[in-house]
């Protein structure tokens, strides 16, 4: 399940063919520098307009999305990126939730197995008791038969 979830995280990127980027796409990967704490795509201020203009200029020069993002990182720093890069310590941001889910899934599975195992043990015990009662049930039947006769 962990591998499947990780693949689903990676998949949206890998499934798209190389196409010229759009300002909208690139601006979703950057933060506005006006201090609003919003992704560039969402901010409507003058600073955001200028940044989007700069992105359009880079697209017109033939730059792709990773190159444009790197250009902004070089100019500002990596806090300009709207998400942590998937390398080094920052990779832990991406995989920790899925690792935690996998560990929790395993623990819950073990707990459920233990609970259902205990429940089966109880069922077996009840069955055993019934088997052990059978000779006495037969004796009771005979006694009752005698009384009725």
């Amino acid at each position: 399940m962990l591998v499947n979830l990780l693949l689903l995280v990676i998949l949206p990127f890998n499934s798209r063919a190389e196409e010229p980027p759009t300002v909208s796409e690139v601006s979703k990967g950057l933060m506005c520098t006006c201090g609003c704490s919003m992704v560039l795509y969402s901010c409507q201020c003058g600073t955001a307009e200028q940044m989007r203009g700069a992105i359009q200029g880079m697209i017109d020069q033939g730059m792709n999305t990773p190159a444009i993002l790197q250009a902004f990182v070089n100019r500002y720093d990596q806090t300009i990126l709207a998400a942590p890069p998937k390398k080094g310590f920052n990779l832990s941001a991406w995989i920790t939730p899925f690792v935690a889910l996998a560990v929790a899934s395993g623990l819950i599975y073990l707990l459920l197995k233990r609970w259902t195992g205990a429940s089966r043990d109880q069922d077996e015990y009840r069955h055993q008791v019934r088997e052990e009662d059978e000779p006495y049930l037969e004796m009771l039947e005979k006694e009752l038969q005698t009384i009725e006769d």
Partner: protein
Amino acid sequence: MYRFAYHILQLAFIITAFTALVSAFGFRKSRGDFLSSSRRGVVLTFGLLSFASAILVYALLAHDFRLEYVAGYTSTTLPPFYSLSAFWAGQKGSLLFWAWILSGFTALVIYQNREKNQHLMPYVVTTLMTIEGFFLLLMLVAENPFETLAFTPADGSGLNPLLQNPGMVMHPPSLYLGYIGFSIPFAFAVAALLTRRLDSQWITTTRKWTIIAWFFLTLGNLFGMKWAYVELGWGGFWAWDPVENASFLPWLTGTAFLHSVMIQERRGMLKVWNVSLVVITFLLTILGTFLTRSGIISSVHSFGKSAVGPFFLWGILGTAGFAFWLILTRLPDLRSEHQLDSLLSRESSFLLNNLLLLGAAFAVLWGTLFPMISEAVTGAKVTVGAPFFNQVGTPIFLALLLLTGICPLIAWRKATGKNFRRNFLWPFTLSLLGGITLWIVGLRDVYIWMSFVFAIFVLYSVGMEFWKGIRAKMRAGKRAFLQALDSLVRSNQRRYGGYVVHLGLVMIFVGITGAVGFKTEQKIQLSQGQSATIKDYTIQLAGLYTKPEPGKVRYGANLDVYKNGALIARMTPEKRIHKGREEQPHTEVALRQTPKEDLYIIYAGTNGEKKAVFDVHINPLTAWIWAGGMVMALGTFLTLYPFRKRNKKDTRREKHITHTRARQPAVTGDTAV
């Protein structure tokens, strides 16, 4: 007057502290007079805080700028509607608002339990009054809402134009009602732990409080989304802002709690899990408040740096330490009364539901706090924004959506594989057919495809549950369809109300998928009389206008919108420049909503060629989000409304049913109606 109001807060703090101590002491020493005194203390606290709140509201409505808070958040031109909403717009006012609501809730809890739960109520009162005292202390030492200015300005700063929206009146109070509402089950859980009365009584008592708190959190989040959509002018409704995340976190864990308590009520299981979950939910409500108020995280929502941050941090740590110490020392009393009969059971599916909800909460919390973690570990700052949360959260939320459809197909205690496959067959088949159809018509995005397919699955699964019940009622009582539906819902409000809530959730998923997956955007530049076409809309600029008003100037455009040659709307997007905030023009979006799609137009101003520039968005299915919220509200209403008046006989009967179900042998096969 305002010095007097501050003294009222001081008196309220003293009475709160007294009440908290006396309640616990009276219970331990079996002193009925102390317990009576504590109940009166609760009512008196509510009275005092109501008085203090009334003074602040009066000052806001009267624009009394002697008060720093009034001068900071209102102005002479601010309409009364928004002057009132300034009560909770700022740090100080919102603290008083929180304290007032909490005191009212505590008084209501006292009243509701005047003849029951006498073994729990003293510690419930102590817990709630301790929380109350915390908020009063914050106001007394750090954020006094009645602080006066050395001089009285002629006018105030006014309310941020972004906050001047009807959603502003609804969004924060709804969230606060949700946050504060979760204090009640938390207090009962603490009382149950302290008294070692760890059966399901505390859960049954607080069930409606939990649902109502969850409902207000749901509403609060939806109001916030709608407010962002119509006010912020970027065509979206959720930005994964840290404060947005902070309101989402307790909703996720609260939803998990709502589901897992059903297992404890039915089977006496998951006791440790449930007390832990309600503690976590309460802590997350305080964490959210901490993030908004401490200034440690930058956000469009945050109040800014404040002295209350350390208080909240220590409050969270202290509460967490105490609560989990209580749980650890009570572990023997929290043993499950029964075992799980089968892996294939509704109990297991609820556990999986909890796992995914808590997983989603962890992912959101991790992403929200990661910038601080990264800086602490590496010394380098990073930003964690929407791309992270969308990529990490989407697969988890899709799995939750699927599970929403699977759970109703599985019986309590033990479902046989044969019956599960039989129940699964039609929903699976129909959703698969739907998926194939979507693939054929060209839908290739994996996530969007999964979202629609799972939505079909859930809709059919829930629909089937309703149909089976209605059919049985129609046959049994020879009723018509609507009568059978009415009878079905009344006979099991919780279950069928819950299904309606799930339907609302599906609608929200569909709306989000449509709005995100099929959005069309285009920037257009128009001179007067000129038109542009986007998809099947033709937009023509009829003219621009400038309207000065008290406190602001409105710059707008009259746009005629045509579809298939016919005029369908006159839309007027605007930019507004508010007095004192000239460097921050405020956008008023023009919005035309239909069930199929929204036409959303932002006026971006004029360019060098003196043409008006507009950002035009076409957002499919967005209206389904708001409609889904209303369906969720309907579902919540159905679970709560007292269709049948409860009497003592009903209460005894319900207790008997709860005990009997726990002792019954496993029921296999179809879920019982």
